[in-house]
């Protein structure tokens, strides 16, 4: 056993499996700082998502990795090689554009073959195009022109075109945003499966947190050109680093308060809705202003002991499998799911699962 484990150790790669490293990246457009000093690591084979509202700088980060924008400061290394003087065409990185950017004058086959034809000397172009189109279930569409395809089909072709040259890193700029909800769901599953099968690292840009959670190993939430939080989806969801992250993901209600006591990784916060003890972000000390994050699923209309909050129904939205209710409690609207719609004005008692809620920092 001992020998075996030592042998296992030896098969570990000697170098860190770090694929892309960005350090101190700054990019300014005119007077606005699109990217304001970020550090970002992308490990090999990772599915990393840059998540944030429009204008947060996520697309600029992607464009700097692709080589379409030059950082004003900082360094980008791929496979430990600085990329500063490498033009886009020489980077082992390919992009799936938001608009797909398929060449309208070329057939699907010629679009996908584009990068191989440029290289010259590739003898098995036909086979590889076929394989790439197979991977996205578009093998029968080689003779079509882009304008003869639906949005979802164009998206698949764009993916096939960008993976055929076997890049080290695939960049995807909101690739599903133009599609309807159902098609988006299908393609999310396909993209994830494709990424696992190819073993290529993906850097994916989206403003849709559900999409980010569904696809990613690592989610990087960006706000105003900076990284607000970088973690796995579960951590982002259950322990948002600050009130911006908490607000951006999910339907949480944020309740402002002040830390009264701190014991280990838990804290007691005094809010307008009462005093609550819950897990808390590191570094929050007694006296600090902080934010209690109440996610909808942590509120229930049943519970033991006395109810945490009491209030009345302010609105109720039927969503099919359940209803989303907003309860007026102490001037705040607490969102929670109910099995059936409730009529406005009904008084409700709510129990909070405080152990699973979170007290976080207030975003700058």
């Amino acid at each position: 056993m001992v020998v075996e484990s030592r042998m296992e150790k030896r098969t570990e790669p000697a170098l860190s499996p770090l694929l892309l490293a960005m350090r101190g990246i700054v990019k300014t457009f005119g007077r606005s700082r699109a990217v304001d000093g970020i550090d970002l690591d992308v490990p090999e084979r990772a599915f990393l998502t840059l998540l944030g509202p429009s204008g947060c700088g996520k697309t600029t980060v992607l464009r700097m990795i692709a080589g379409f924008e030059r950082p004003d400061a900082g360094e980008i290394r791929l496979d430990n090689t600085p990329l500063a003087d490498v033009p886009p065409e020489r980077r082992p990185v390919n992009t799936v554009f938001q608009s797909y950017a398929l060449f309208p004058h070329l057939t699907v086959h010629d679009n996908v073959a584009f990068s191989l034809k440029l290289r010259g000397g590739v003898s098995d172009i036909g086979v590889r195009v076929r394989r790439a189109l197979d991977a996205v279930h578009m093998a029968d569409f080689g003779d079509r022109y882009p304008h003869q395809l639906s949005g979802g089909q164009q998206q698949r072709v764009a993916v096939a075109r960008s993976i055929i040259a076997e890049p080290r890193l695939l960049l995807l700029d909101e690739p599903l945003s133009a599609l309807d909800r159902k098609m988006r769901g299908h393609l999310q599953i396909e993209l994830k499966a494709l990424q696992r099968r190819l073993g290529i690292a993906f850097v994916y840009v989206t403003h849709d947190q559900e999409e980010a959670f569904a696809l990613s190993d690592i989610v990087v939430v960006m706000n105003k050109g900076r990284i607000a939080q970088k973690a796995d989806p579960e951590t982002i969801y259950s322990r948002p680093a600050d009130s911006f992250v908490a607000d951006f993901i999910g339907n949480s209600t944020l309740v402002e308060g002040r830390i009264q006591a701190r014991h280990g990784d838990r804290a007691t916060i005094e809010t307008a809705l009462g005093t609550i003890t819950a897990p808390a972000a590191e570094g929050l000390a007694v006296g600090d202003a902080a934010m209690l994050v109440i996610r909808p699923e942590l509120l229930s209309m049943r519970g033991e002991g006395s109810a945490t909050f009491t209030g009345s129904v302010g609105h109720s939205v039927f969503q099919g499998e359940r209803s989303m209710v907003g309860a007026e409690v102490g001037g705040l609207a607490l969102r929670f799911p109910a099995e059936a719609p409730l009529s406005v004005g009904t008084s409700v008692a709510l129990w909070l699962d405080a152990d699973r809620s979170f007290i976080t920092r207030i975003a700058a």
Partner: protein
Amino acid sequence: MTFRQRHLALPVAVAIIAGCLAPLAVLVAFSFYEVEEFDLVPAFSFRAWGELAVSATDWFLIGKAVLSGLTTTVFTVVLGYPVALALTRLSASAKGLAVIVLLTPLYTGEIVRIYAWRIVLGGEGLVNTVLQGLGLIDEPMKVLLFSPFTIGLVLTYNNLPFMVLAIWVSAEMVDRRLIEAARDLGARPVDAFFRVILPLTVPGLAAGSLTVFALSAGEMLTPSLLGGTSGSTAMALVDNLFGTAFDWPLASALALALLATLFLVASAMAGLMLRLKGARAVIGRA
């Protein structure tokens, strides 16, 4: 008869028939007339067509018109394409200014421009004076004015705006993200040009080429006023036959032969360019 969208084309159809096909029919008729003692006599005579068929001068002039049209087209493409591409890079306000600059010469009128060229290119003109002043030449260069060079230069100058405008509009329509996509997929800037930008601007190239070819092949004033001894054109001959020589049948036959030749060449150009891949992207979409 219900009103449909295609009926909107009726006024144009009427105008074409009245203004173009009818006069052509008249020309065809005249070409079979006879001239007797300074009078046009309706007769079914092949005299004019027979004379035209064996006239080396007439066919030389028709060929010269085709050649002049083609060379002007090539020159304006080569000079105009980079200008058109550069225009797409300008800011919106700079584009407005650039178009004004581009079109201003067209507003000055052909005769004014022709005499301006005489001043610029003449023996004591701007170019010769400057070159002599710099000591680069001892004698004024005679080739500048009243030569085939002059005709080529001025026809290119006159027609450049039409070519630039046509290519420019086409180049503006090329989505910049397509160029980024090409770069991303391994294309150097020169590859992106030949594989993406050039194919997608074929419609503009075609429109510009057909316009410039038609305008320059049929040009008469510039060659006769600036071309000196090399300035004879088929057009000038037609003018002469209709006017001083009073041989309307021959003038009609020559005009028809010139028209048919130019039409054939232009159709061949259009056919060739529409075969290119880029044209499909725009025209083949229907």
